């Protein structure tokens, strides 16, 4: 044996150092692996590169990519830089990877890769293709786009958002938007919040952001840096299956529990791996989330567990509300000589004052006061009154959660601080998803948990949610922005010319025809297009019905930058040459742009664009990246300069609202009757709905660890452990027995919009009355993850008008707000 204790220990230390060293040298230096010669072994010199995994799962892991002779042979987790751009110490952040990231080798070399440009030769959706050249393909695109624009107007060409990537050049903020703006086309929402991910951001903006202030750019959405959860004393996972879908983040939650005894609490209609590993699980009726929050607040008020000082200083709680108009009382209307200001009641001298009155000592946060001939209460009083009916009994009635559990959670919320909430986008997949978030923020505000380490309400946060990148000039080199056409507005634009005709579309890494809700309608609209082009690395359901498909690169084959869901800048070098005839989207766009007369906006390399977007080396670079050098960017994953660190939004308690305070009383929602977060039943998935008799099951389509949306679907490694790649419907044995359904039976899931067939999986993990089919499986010509159809055959596109108040988050696909019936299919 060759071991010595010393050697082993030194060796161990060298591992850490070795990886870090490789990190530094990652882009250039071989890792000196000796070659072997026999057959069936890898020979040649190995080079190791660091990159970021950009495939829209918000994990944003760092990958070490091992390459031998131009082929990827190994992917492993990468270390993070230990410094910020300006050289301060960055928080400790563990290397992270998951089964999907490891599977990127198989994804890159998948036989399902689109290898060449293809033109449709049969009917749309017939799967008949003819290989063509890039020259022919890009000419076709340019010609068709020009024809459509001449006939129907510039905006009739729609560049669809890249939901499949979070990178900068080719991702949710990518080059497609630049193309749209220079050709005057319309494009999907560049906030990356299209489809089902904008209801909770809208709710967040109601309370924390003034959408009318240009400085807020139409609304934004951010959260706490993931390592900030280490400071929490309790963490509530609200509709958030972190342990399955954001696996590396779960480590942080467990580290918090181990270090601080942090309580982990799961609120979910399903008993998920997260629920199983938490200290408490509240099995909630889907869509009754706001009722539970209102019930918690009622308890907090009754037991005076709110944070009076915080409410007084940082929220609109003390401001008086006009009882007739429900709007704020204005000081200049009711106090002689006062300015246009909020009105408060000073407890010290029992007088009404303007909020900015220097003589104010202690504004009352609760109570109703005589103002002229009105009895006006504080906003907090209005909230306390509203939630007063949400007794534990009534809340149990609405949520199906035993009242003792409701009281237990309410006690925790009122007494444990700081308390953090992690919210999954599942909470956004509801018509009233905005209200869910409004309610959570209201509760966090009255318990003093906003803008504090270990508090807040977080879905994600990272470089992309900061001001680090000059996206406006990247998207709009002419200064004229593209027209935004939301994904939810696509069908009407194509089929009804509302708000204007759309006749051509380019989908870039966006599986719109399968992942968008109300799929039958979406496919109908897509088939009605004059011209449709899809860039993807896989022959997706969207590519199936295109006129032209272009072979795109995976994240390993092109240069980019990733800065999502964490505050590191992860440079993504081109590690291997594009496979087959694939091209980066930037290169594909360049060819089209040249043929449309706008090639001058696409002359630069990705490296140059990255420098421009970062204002690299310029004095006007954003403070988060000021002083960054190209060498720094390309040699380590450097942390942005954030204040504080770990990043916490509104840590300085400067809220960009009209009042400068947390507006849990939302005046602009008065016309919608939603100024306070009173529970409202789901638009469809409610027993109060008349449809409920016909379709008595709430139909969820949640995420699985084996996929990121519809990516990684056909990979054999993952399918071997994912039921052979066959989708299934989770159904409680109670609901199954009633329908004579046994485990493994084929069932039809249906409602008035559509249906699907899939095998039943009987499991106690799902609440009776609820069924779930993991979304993202494929229904393409060649690959059927379900026996027939897809969950989105059943979902709808009901948009909530109130959301339109927030320009960047105006509509949302309420995937989960969906009723269905399930019946046995006789085989």
């Amino acid at each position, binding site marked *: 044996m060759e071991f010595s204790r010393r050697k082993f220990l030194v060796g161990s230390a060298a591992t850490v150092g070795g990886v870090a060293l490789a990190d530094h040298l990652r882009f250039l230096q071989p890792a000196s692996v*000796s070659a072997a010669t026999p057959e069936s072994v890898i020979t040649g010199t190995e080079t190791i590169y660091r990159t970021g995994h950009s495939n829209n799962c918000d994990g944003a892991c760092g990958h070490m990519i091992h390459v031998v002779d131009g082929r990827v042979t190994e992917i492993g987790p990468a270390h993070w830089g230990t410094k910020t751009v300006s050289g301060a110490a960055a928080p400790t952040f563990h290397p992270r990877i998951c089964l999907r990231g490891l599977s990127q080798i198989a994804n890159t070399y998948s036989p399902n890769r689109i290898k060449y440009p293809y033109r449709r030769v049969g009917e749309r959706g017939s799967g008949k293709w003819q290989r063509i050249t890039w020259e022919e393909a890009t000419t076709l695109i340019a010609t068709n786009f020009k024809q459509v624009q001449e006939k129907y107007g510039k905006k009739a060409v729609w560049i669809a958002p890249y939901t499949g990537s979070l990178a900068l050049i080719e991702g949710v903020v990518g080059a497609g938007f630049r193309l749209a703006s220079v050709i005057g086309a319309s494009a999907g929402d560049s906030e990356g919040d299209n489809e089902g991910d904008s209801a909770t951001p809208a709710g967040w903006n109601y309370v924390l952001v003034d959408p009318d202030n240009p400085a807020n750019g139409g609304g934004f959405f951010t959260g706490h840096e993931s390592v900030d959860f280490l400071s929490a004393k309790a963490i509530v996972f609200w509709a958030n299956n972190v342990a399955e879908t954001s696996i590396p983040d779960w480590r942080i939650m467990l580290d918090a529990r181990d270090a601080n005894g942090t309580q982990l609490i799961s609120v979910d209609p399903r008993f998920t791996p997260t629920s199983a590993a938490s200290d408490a699980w509240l099995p909630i009726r889907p869509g009754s989330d706001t009722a539970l929050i209102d019930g918690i607040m009622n308890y907090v008020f009754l037991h005076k567990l709110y944070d009076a000082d915080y409410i007084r200083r940082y929220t609109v709680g003390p401001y008086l509300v006009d009882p007739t108009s429900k709007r704020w009382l204005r000081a200049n209307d009711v106090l002689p000589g006062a300015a246009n200001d909020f009105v408060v009641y000073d407890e010290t001298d029992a007088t009404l004052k303007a909020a900015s009155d220097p003589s104010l000592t202690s504004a009352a946060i609760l109570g109703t006061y005589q103002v002229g001939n009105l009895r006006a209460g504080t906003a907090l009083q209005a909230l306390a009154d509203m939630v007063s009916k949400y007794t534990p009994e009534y809340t149990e009635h609405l949520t199906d959660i035993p009242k003792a559990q409701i009281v237990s959670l309410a006690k925790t919320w009122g007494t444990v601080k700081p308390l953090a909430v992690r919210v999954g986008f599942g909470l956004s997949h509801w018509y009233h998803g905005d209200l869910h978030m409004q309610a959570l923020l209201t509760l966090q505000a009255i318990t003093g948990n906003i803008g504090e380490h270990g508090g807040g309400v977080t879905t994600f946060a990272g470089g992309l949610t900061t001001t680090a990148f000059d996206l406006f000039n990247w998207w709009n080199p002419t200064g004229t922005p593209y027209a935004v056409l939301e994904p939810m507005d696509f069908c009407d634009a194509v089929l009804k010319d509302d708000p204007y005709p759309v006749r051509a579309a380019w989908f870039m890494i966006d599986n719109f025809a399968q992942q968008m809700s109300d799929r039958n309608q979406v496919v109908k609209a897509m088939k009605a297009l004059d011209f449709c082009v899809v860039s993807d690395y896989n022959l997706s359901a969207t590519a199936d019905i295109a006129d032209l498909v272009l072979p795109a690169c995976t994240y390993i084959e092109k240069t980019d930058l990733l800065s999502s869901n964490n505050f590191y800048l992860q440079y993504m070098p081109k590690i291997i040459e594009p496979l087959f005839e694939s091209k980066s989207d930037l290169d594909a766009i360049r060819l089209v742009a040249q043929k449309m007369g706008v090639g001058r906006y696409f002359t630069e390399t990705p490296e140059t664009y990255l420098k421009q977007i970062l204002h690299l080396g310029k004095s006007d670079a954003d403070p988060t990246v000021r002083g960054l050098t190209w060498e720094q960017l390309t040699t380590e994953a450097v942390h942005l300069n954030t204040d504080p660190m770990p990043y916490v939004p509104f840590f300085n308690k400067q809220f960009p609202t009209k009042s400068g305070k947390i507006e849990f009383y939302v005046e602009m929602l008065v016309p919608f009757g939603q100024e306070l977060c009173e529970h409202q039943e789901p638009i469809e998935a409610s027993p109060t709905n008349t449809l409920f008799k016909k379709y008595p099951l709430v139909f969820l389509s949640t995420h699985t660890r084996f996929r990121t949306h519809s990516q990684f679907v056909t990979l054999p490694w993952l399918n071997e452990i994912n039921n052979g790649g066959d989708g299934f419907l989770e159904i409680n044995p109670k609901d199954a027995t009633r329908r004579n359904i046994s485990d493994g039976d084929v069932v039809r899931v249906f409602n008035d919009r559509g249906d699907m067939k899939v095998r039943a999986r009987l499991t106690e993990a799902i609440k009776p009355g609820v069924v779930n089919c993991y979304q993202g499986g494929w229904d393409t010509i060649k690959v059927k993850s379900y026996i027939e159809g897809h969950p989105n055959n059943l979902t709808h596109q009901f948009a909530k008008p109130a959301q339109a108040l927030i320009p960047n988050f105006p509509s949302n696909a309420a995937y989960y707000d969906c009723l269905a019936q399930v019946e046995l299919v006789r085989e």
Partner: protein
Amino acid sequence: MTDEKTKYVPHHVMVVDTNRCVGCWTCAVGCKEINNEPLGFWWNRILTTAPNQSTTAAPPASENIDVPRGVFPDLELAYLPVACQHCNDAPCVKVCPVQATYRRDDGAVLIDYERCIGCRYCMAACPYGVRIFNWGDAEYAPGGIVGYGKNYYDDGRLVFTPERPKGVVEKCTFCVERIDVGEEPFCVEVCPIGARVFGDLNDADSEVSQLINEGGAVQLHPELGTDPNVYYVPVRKRVVRES
């Protein structure tokens, strides 16, 4: 030989904290990658189980993933990653007629692929069901050999080769090719939750020693007397439902 006696031999053990494991299969996919395991082969599998349930005969691990025990809403769910337990008193070693399977001094149980005659006695003897036989020509995911990719010899014995030939038994090697150069087994490196710890049990200060001596980590089926070098920290917390 006298020289070797002066060399320090560590006692390699792995500890899996089942409080941390969430059944994500990252370790298993990592294992598949680093060892270039053929389609259908899993040296490392994650069983869906209840907290602190020991198990021997593993069902196909990919069946009923995440299906809990109990009746809604009183449920239990835990995960148990199972690969070779690297037993100090390994039944597989005892039954191997050609000494292809052997226990290395550091505790790793290895197979010399050049000696294995494919009799599969070891598979019958292993109480943990972790060995896989190469019945035919292996199929692989497209893209070529992945992972370590080279032959690795332990004292002249071929204990790793990227494509194991037809007719041999294969299983987890504790990543000997990695630990011998001071790296961690790949499942430990890739585990996103920090649920796996590898180290030297001779070193009382090592994390593994602490987890075993003070953290209550236990062996799988200790009553069998196999004395594995893989330990599991039992689940301490369960879902609390007050009603």
